[in-house]
């Protein structure tokens, strides 16, 4: 399994139009609902917000990776969006967040969940990748960059 096996171009939203952390999370969640990947958005949103209470997923450098484990997910789903100006995600570096990945996974697969989180984090921690992604105007372009970057990474054991 690779990140780009879960994150499809149609799950990428450019631009994100909402202006608050909560609304952006809802915006990305609605993408997965529209794509029929998530069926219980209210329960999933609750789980995401519960996770945010532990510590912000705004990891800094303009990136946030909200995520949750939930019994309402049967498989992994990832949506991603780019905000044109950035929003306040209570990031660790207090800088605006422009790149947001939303990861939802089933409760019984924490290992795969951690590996996917780690994969996202490793790819997006590269300044060059972030800059390339921020220049993209289409989901397919973002997908192609992620796919190209991940090409050198090993397969994640699901």
């Amino acid at each position: 399994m690779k990140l780009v096996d879960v994150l499809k171009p149609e799950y990428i939203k450019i631009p994100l139009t909402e202006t608050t952390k909560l609304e952006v999370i809802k915006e990305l969640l609605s993408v997965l609902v529209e794509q029929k990947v998530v069926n219980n958005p209210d329960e999933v949103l609750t789980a995401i917000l519960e996770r945010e209470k532990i510590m912000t997923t705004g990891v800094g450098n303009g990136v946030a990776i909200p995520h949750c484990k939930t019994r309402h997910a049967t498989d992994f789903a990832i949506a991603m969006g780019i905000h044109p100006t950035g929003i306040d995600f209570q990031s660790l570096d207090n800088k605006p967040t422009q790149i947001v990945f939303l990861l939802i996974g089933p409760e019984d697969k924490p290992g795969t969940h951690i590996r996917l989180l780690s994969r996202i984090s490793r790819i997006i921690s590269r300044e060059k990748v972030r800059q390339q992604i921020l220049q993209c105007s289409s989901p397919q372009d973002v997908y192609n960059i992620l796919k190209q970057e991940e090409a050198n990474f090993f397969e994640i054991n699901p």
Partner: protein
Amino acid sequence: MKAFFLILNKEEYLEEILEVFLELNIPGATVIDSIGMGTILAKDIPIFAGFRHVFQGSRSGNKTIISIIPDELVEPTILAIEQVIGPLTSPGNGLAFTVAVQDLFGLREAL
């Protein structure tokens, strides 16, 4: 000769483990403050904060003990360590392994 490594999770047993070494006539060991990967992931990398339960048992730190011992002492050392801390097969107790030593310089003689 073997290089004997013990990752001791229960630091409270360090003194007793070193006493075991003395009793086995192991004249010296190096003790290093160390930290397990799970502890760092759970506490220092925010994105994994939601998985602290997965890394349960991860302590704030552990001790890595390194010693050069004769081959015939490997099994008695393991047995003696397990008498102190419990089976190494139990989660959270620790990890031990050996590596064959090809050359060795500077080892003091047994007491």
